[in-house]
């Protein structure tokens, strides 16, 4: 597996690079679907001044690899990349990117949508929101 396909990192990622990486995994790629999660200015009516993401180093990366493995087994896709940032993230900045390549678009859409839901469900990453009321660890996965 190409090391660049799975990453938890402080710095921002390149969407172009991730999409191109999964596209070029095969000459048979006809479609790439990418999901980008970004930091919103409001959440449940509260203005968000900033976010802080924490993860379980080691375990979180293993869970992301496991999501990719299961996506490759269960969907008719060619490749999948999953990148997640941690540390301080400001409004408008990128948080997470999932890119799936396939011969046909339907498979890429399904795998990408499944993978972000699965990431939220299974990966030990936690978000702290800073609002006017202070800092709060978010305890649900919408």
């Amino acid at each position, binding site marked *: 597996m190409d090391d660049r396909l799975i990453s938890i990192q402080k710095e921002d990622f390149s969407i172009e690079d991730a999409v191109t990486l999964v596209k070029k995994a095969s000459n048979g790629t006809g479609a790439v679907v990418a999901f980008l*999660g970004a930091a919103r200015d409001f959440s449940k009516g509260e203005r968000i001044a900033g976010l802080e*993401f*924490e*993860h*379980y180093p*080691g*375990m*979180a990366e*293993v869970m992301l690899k496991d999501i990719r493995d299961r996506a490759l087994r269960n969907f008719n896709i060619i490749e999948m990349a999953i990148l*997640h940032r941690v540390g301080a993230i400001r409004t408008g900045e990128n*948080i*997470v990117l999932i890119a799936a390549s396939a011969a046909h678009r339907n498979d890429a859409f399904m795998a990408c949508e499944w993978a*972000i839901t699965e*990431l*939220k*469900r*299974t*990966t*030990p*990453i*936690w*978000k*702290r929101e800073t609002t006017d009321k202070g800092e709060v*660890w*978010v*305890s*649900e*996965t919408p």
Partner: protein
Amino acid sequence: MITVRFFAMLKGLAKADTHHYELNSAITVDELKAMLKRDFPGLRDVLDSRSILISINQEFASKDAIVKDNDEVGLLPPFSGG
């Protein structure tokens, strides 16, 4: 010696990032939880609420799973990545 790691809101409740126990023999996850509730009053409510997942050596573990010497136990509050 085992290492218990606290994450996210649990760090604030435990007022610690990690805690160590010397074990004379292997114990279950439920037995470890009882020790943590005794030693960290701030964790009692949340450990009773069943919203906390447990990992042993970075793999999800059930309440009957065995914790033995040198293990790393993670206390994982509900995830909010993505």
